[in-house]
C-alpha cells in the first residue's frame, strides 16, 4: 500500500473537478456576502429556505442531468417534457377523473416512457444525443400544446396536492425540499458510490473502451435517459403544485438552466469527469444570484449577464487546467505515442 501522502497527491490529480467546485464555492460565498450587504432581508433563514423552495425543480433536472452528461450525452428535452408531464397530469386529473396520486404515478410513467424513447433512439439507432433530444424537445412541447390546444390551463387542484409545492413542514421547511434532497442524495450515491456510476464515467471517457471492457454500454445509457425522463415528470409535479396551474409552456428553457448548472458545477461537457455536489453548487449559485439581485432591487437582466460571466469563467478555468494536466500527462506518454505511430508497415 502507498503512503498516505502519495495517495492525497494522486487523488487530487484524478479529480480535477474538485478545483471547479472550490472555485464555485468561492463564487457562492462571495456573492452571498455581497447580497447580504446590498439586499434587504437576504441574509435570513426564511430567505434561504425560499431559495431552496424555488430551486427544487431546476435542481431535480440538473442533478439527474449530471449522469447524462457524465456519459458524454445531453438531454435537451427535459424542459419540454416538464411541460408535457404537467399538462398530462392536469388532463388525467381533471378530464380523466383520476385521484391526484394516481394521476401523479401515471405522469411519472409518462416521463419514463419519454426518456425511454430518447434512450432507444440514442442506443439503437446510434443517433447523437444532441440531435435526438433536440427533436424530442420539439416533439414533447408540441404534444403538450396539442393536448391543451394551446389555450387550456388546468387549475383548481386539491389542497392535498398543492401542499407539495406551497406547504411547509412545521411551518418552516418547504414541503418539496425533502424530495429534492432525497433525489440529490440518491443520484449522488448512484454516481459516486456504485459500480454503475463508475461505468458511466468509463462510457463518458471512451464508449469504445468501455465496450471492450464488457460494460453493457447501451443498457447503461438507457438507464440515465430513463432517469432523466422520470426526473422531468417529478419536477413537473412539483412545478404544478407550486404555481397551482398546468399550462403547455411550463418549464420553457429549464433544460438550458439545468445544463448551465451542471457545467458550472465542473462536469465536463465531453463526459467522464464531474460530480453531483458540483451540480448542486451550480444550482445554488444561480438561484442565489437571481434571488439576491431581486432583493437588491437590481434589474433581472443582470442575472442573465452574470450567469454568462460565471459560466464562461469556470469553463475557461477548466480548459486552462486541462491544458496544464495534458502537458503533464503528455510528457509521460510521449514515448508511447511516437512508438505506436510507427505503423506496422503493410
Amino acid at each position, binding site marked *: 500500500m502507498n503512503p498516505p501522502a502519495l495517495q492525497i497527491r494522486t487523488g487530487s490529480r484524478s479529480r480535477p473537478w474538485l478545483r471547479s467546485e472550490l472555485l464555485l464555492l468561492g463564487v457562492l460565498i462571495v456573492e452571498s456576502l455581497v447580497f447580504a450587504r446590498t439586499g434587504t432581508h437576504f441574509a435570513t433563514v426564511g430567505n434561504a429556505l425560499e431559495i431552496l423552495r424555488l430551486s427544487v425543480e431546476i435542481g431535480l433536472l440538473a442533478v439527474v442531468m449530471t449522469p447524462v452528461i457524465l456519459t458524454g450525452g445531453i438531454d435537451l428535452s427535459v424542459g419540454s417534457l416538464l411541460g408535457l408531464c404537467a399538462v398530462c397530469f392536469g388532463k388525467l386529473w381533471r378530464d380523466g377523473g383520476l385521484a391526484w396520486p394516481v394521476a401523479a404515478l401515471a405522469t411519472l410513467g409518462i416521463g419514463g416512457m419519454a426518456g425511454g424513447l430518447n434512450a432507444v433512439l440514442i442506443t439503437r439507432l446510434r443517433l447523437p444525443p444532441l440531435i435526438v433530444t433536440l427533436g424530442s424537445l420539439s416533439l414533447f412541447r408540441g404534444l403538450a400544446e396539442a393536448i391543451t390546444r394551446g389555450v387550456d390551463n388546468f387549475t383548481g387542484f386539491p389542497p392535498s396536492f398543492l401542499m407539495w409545492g406551497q406547504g411547509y413542514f412545521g411551518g418552516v421547511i418547504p414541503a418539496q425540499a425533502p424530495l429534492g434532497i432525497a433525489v440529490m442524495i440518491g443520484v449522488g450515491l448512484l454516481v459516486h458510490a456504485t459500480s454503475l456510476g463508475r461505468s458511466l464515467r468509463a462510457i463518458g471517457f471512451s464508449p469504445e473502451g468501455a465496450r471492450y471492457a464488457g460494460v453493457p454500454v447501451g443498457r447503461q445509457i438507457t438507464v440515465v435517459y430513463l432517469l432523466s425522463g422520470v426526473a422531468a415528470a417529478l419536477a413537473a409535479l412539483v412545478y404544478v403544485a407550486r404555481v397551482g396551474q398546468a399550462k403547455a409552456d411550463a418549464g420553457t428553457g429549464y433544460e438550458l438552466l439545468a445544463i448551465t448548472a451542471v457545467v458550472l458545477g465542473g462536469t465536463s461537457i465531453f463526459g467522464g469527469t464531474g460530480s453531483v455536489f458540483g451540480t448542486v453548487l451550480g444550482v445554488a449559485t444561480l438561484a442565489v444570484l437571481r434571488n439576491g439581485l431581486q432583493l437588491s432591487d437590481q434589474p433581472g437582466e443582470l442575472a442573465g449577464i452574470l450567469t454568462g460571466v460565471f459560466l464562461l469563467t469556470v469553463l475557461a478555468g477548466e480548459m486552462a487546467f486541462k491544458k496544464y494536466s495534458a502537458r503533464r500527462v503528455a510528457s509521460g506518454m510521449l514515448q508511447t*505515442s511516437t*512508438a505506436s505511430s510507427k505503423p506496422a508497415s503493410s
Partner: protein
Amino acid sequence: MKLNTAHLIPDAGVSGSVASRAESVLRLTGLTKSFGAVRALRGVSFDLKAGEVHALLGENGAGKSTLIKVIAGAHAPDAGTLEVFGHPVDRLDPATAHRLGIACIYQQPALFPDLTVAENIGLRLEPATAVRWIDPVQQKSCAVEWLRRIGAEISPDSEVRELSMPEQQLVEIACALGAGARIVIMDEPTSSLTQREVERLFAVVRDLRRQGVGIIYISHRLEEIFALADRVTVLRDGESVGTFPVRDSRNQPALTEAELIRWMVGREVSQLYPPATGAPGDIVLSVSGLGCAAAGVHSVDLQVRSGEILGLAGLVGAGRTELARVLFGLTPADSGEIRWRGRVVRIRSPREAIAQGIAYVPEDRRRHGVILEMPVAHNLTLAVHRTLFPGGWLLPKAEGVLAGEWIGRLGIKTDGPQAPVGSLSGGNQQKVALGRWLVTKPGLLILDEPTQGVDVGAKGEIHQIIRGLAADGLAVVLISSDLPEVLGMSDRIAVMRGGTVVTVLPGGSTASAVMAAALGQPPDGTGV
C-alpha cells in the same frame, strides 16, 4: 486557371525503354529514422528511375511505410540524404514534396466524399490561395481531360461517395498527374480490388511508366511484383536487403518467389523467448465453420488447449483481429459453432464472452485496451464489477487491495493506483490492459499485438508474463505481426489469409513456411 500540362504529353520521340531514361528521379542514401526506442529505418538507400516501376517488399514492420512517409515528406529522417531530380533536398515537408512532383496514393483514398469528381480534382489542381474563383465549366473539362488520359471511365459529375474503391484510386491518380507528379507512390493499391480491377489498374500503371513517371509500388502479392515491377527492393528490420532486377536481359524472371520470401524473412529466430514448459492440456475452445459476414471472417476451424500458446499469424488484413472480435462477441458470429470446454455456447456480447471466461486484450491499446483518463485501479477492475462489487456498491478497500496486488504482480510502474493510465509509459499501459483481464481469471486469453509500440525491456517482461500464464494452464491466442515473436512464443501457429485459417503449423516451423502460407504460396521446403 492555366495548367502546365506540357510535361505530361507523351514524348513520341522516345521509345520508352528503361535504358534511355536511366537517370534517377529520386535517390535516398543512408536514411535513418527512429521512433523512441524503435529503429524503423537503419541506413536505407534507395533509388528510383524515370519510367520504372520499383517494388518495395518487406514483412509487416520492415520499414516500408516509414520509408514512403519520408519520401512523401510526412516524416523527417534522423540522418541520410535525399535527392530529387538530382537536386539535394534538405527539408522535405508534404507541401514541398507535392511541389517537387511526389504524389502518394494510399490504400484508403483521401478524397472528399461529398464533392463531385470534378470538384475533387479541381481542389487539388487549383493554386491554394485563400479565396479562389471556381469556373465549373473549366473545372469539369480539366477533370474530363485527366480522367481520359489515364483511361478512366468515370463521370466527373458523380459524387465521390458513389464510386467504388478502385474508381476512387483512379481519381487519386488523376489528381496526382494533374498536379504534375513525376514520382508516384502506390501503397498496396490492389488490396481491396477484384482481379479485373487489378488488371485495369495495371494498365494505368504501365501507361504511367511509358510516360516516364517513376512509380514506387508496394504490395504483399508477389505475383504482382513479377507482373509489373522492373526492380524490387527488399526491406527487413529497417534495413535494405538489396535491390534486384525482376527480369534479366532476355526478359526472363531473374528471381524466384522463394528467394524473395527468404530475403524478406531471412533471419534466425532469436533465442530470447522463454521456453515452453509442460504439455498442453484439454481443449478449451473449439470452433468449427465459424463465420461473421460483417467482420469478413468465414469457415474458421480452430482449437485451443489449456496451457498452450497458439500463434495467429498472417498479413495485416488477413482477418486475425476480426476473428478475435468474433470470439469476444464484439461482432458476434452468424455461422458455425463455438464449443467452450466441450459445450456449445453462443457469444453475442463481450459480457457473454467474459462470463464464459474469454478475455481479449485489443490491438489499439489507447482507444480500446485502457481508458487513459481513468486511474490504474479503476481500469484494472472495470471488467470485474459484477464479482468485485456484488451489491452494485463500490468497495474502495477491496478494489485497492486487488489493484495493489496486480500492480505488484505485473510490476506496473505507476505513481500509485490512483494515477491515470495515460500518465504511464506504453509498456506499463499494456500491463494494465493485460491486468484488467487477468483479474477476471479467464480460461482463454486472446492477445492482439501485445508488444506493439512497447520498448524492448517491457517487451521481454510481457513475453515472460505470457509464458508464465500458459504454464499456469491458461489457453493463450497470440496475434502478432512480429513474425519472430509468433515463432518464438507459439506452441502451434495458425496462419490466416483472406478471412480464414488456411493452415495450422506445428511449433518450431520456419519463418519461410509461415510467410509462404500467409502469402498463399506453396512452401519452398528449404527453410531458413
